[in-house]
């Protein structure tokens, strides 16, 4: 039993599982990457804002009092965060405390916090400007997202392998085994498929039972065929004996009178010379060797072919002085 590699059920199953799993894993990975990336950006930005929010009250006091020492404390506290490139605290009048240079920063990289007086709500007393290291935030977000994607990919691969192993051992191998056994069975030999004990109650067991039913049915049919053939052969043998040994001449001719089958008595009745003419050497028709009786014979054959009743005629055969009458 030889099946091409790509026609095997296991190969096709593996290809399909890998294709579908890869497709789903790719889509999931893309969605997960996008979601994780955005969430990570959001989370980092929020934590940075929370940090600035936490020191904003002190920053407001520093700008309210134009307190450079306090302002620098605030600046240093923010600047220690690795996501901050530079930070500057400006009061409404002339205090400027900074760490790093924000003048080169792009506007989109700057977060500006307006600072109000700690005692009069609507009085603006300064501004806290943070130059956010978005490249680093994006890099962190990408790394985190990639880590998630790698993890889910590994998870998917492991899952696929487990599924494929289960399919192979619980389904494909069992089906292959049944197919191989079925292939090796000679019809009518009485062999059956033995169903694996763990599959007796499932679909595999049902398949094995159905196959055994079909095998049994085929065996019965074959036995009946054998019996009939034996009877036919027996009948043939008996009728052949009658055909060969009867004193009556029997011959079978076609529509044109050519001889198909005949018995020894027919040879004797027709005589050697006529039989020679009828034989394969001369291959003449029976009508042509019957001489004057040819027309009567032809007519009788035609009548026999057109009707259902047997036809009986008398024919005269003369060999030199020997005259014989035949009834056909």
């Amino acid at each position, binding site marked *: 039993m030889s099946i091409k590699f790509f026609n095997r059920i296991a190969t096709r199953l593996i290809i399909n599982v890998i294709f579908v799993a890869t497709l789903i894993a790719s889509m999931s990975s893309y969605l997960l990457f996008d979601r994780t990336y955005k969430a990570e950006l959001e989370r980092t930005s929020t934590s940075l804002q929370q940090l600035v929010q936490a020191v904003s009250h*002190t920053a407001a*006091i520093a700008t*309210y*009092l*134009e*307190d*450079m*020492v*306090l302002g620098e*404390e605030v600046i240093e506290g923010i600047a220690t965060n690795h996501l901050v490139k530079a930070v500057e605290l400006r009061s409404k009048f002339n205090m400027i405390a900074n760490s790093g240079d924000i003048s080169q920063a792009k506007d989109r990289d700057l977060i500006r916090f307006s600072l109000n007086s*700690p*005692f*009069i709500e609507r*009085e603006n007393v300064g501004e806290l400007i943070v130059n956010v290291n978005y490249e680093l935030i994006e890099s962190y977000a990408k790394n985190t997202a990639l880590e998630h994607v790698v993890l889910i990919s590994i998870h998917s691969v492991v899952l696929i392998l487990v599924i494929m192993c289960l399919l192979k051992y619980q389904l494909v191998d069992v089906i292959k085994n049944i197919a191989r056994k079925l292939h090796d069975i000679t019809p009518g030999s009485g062999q059956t498929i033995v169903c694996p004990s763990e599959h007796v109650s499932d679909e595999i067991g049902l398949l094995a039972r159905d196959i055994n039913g079909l095998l049994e049915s085929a065996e019965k049919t074959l036995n009946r065929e054998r019996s009939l053939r034996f009877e036919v052969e027996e009948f043939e043998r008996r009728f052949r004996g009658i055909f060969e040994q009867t004193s009556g001449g029997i011959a079978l001719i076609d529509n044109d009178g050519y001889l198909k089958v005949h018995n020894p008595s027919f040879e004797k009745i027709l005589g050697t010379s006529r039989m020679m003419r009828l034989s394969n050497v001369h291959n003449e028709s029976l009508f042509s060797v019957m001489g004057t009786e040819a027309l009567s014979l032809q007519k009788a054959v035609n009548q026999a072919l057109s009707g259902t009743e047997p036809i009986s005629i008398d024919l005269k055969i003369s060999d030199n002085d020997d005259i014989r009458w035949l009834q056909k």
Partner: protein
Amino acid sequence: MKQLLSLTLIFILFYAELSAAEGVVVVVANKDNQMKVLTKKQVIDIYMGRTTLFPNGEAALPLDQNSDSSIRKLFYQNLVNKTVSEINAYWARLLFSGRATPPRMVESVTSVINIIKNNKAAIGYIQLEDLTDDVQVITYVD
């Protein structure tokens, strides 16, 4: 009956007026101080350490009252809407920077009035009922 109702009404009005007077805090300064009126914001700036000068450029010496006193609690509540604890925390935060110093603490209302009476730069707060002719009111904090 009408007389009784009228008496009751008069008593209620009198009591309400008395209670209102008790809740009013006035900021007072030396009578010779050129600044006759200060805005609430200017008082805040002096008391919260933003400036040590009056708007006319003369030095200002803010006086605070006993930390547990009800007048202090009322003053800061009315002035900046902060509790005494928050004010203490504010000054504690500024303790090491040295940029601003808290107002000088004075034990009693009498001491406040005496210091203001003798120091042209001094500025303090008292209840309206404690007001004397030795000082001038430069703003109301209510």
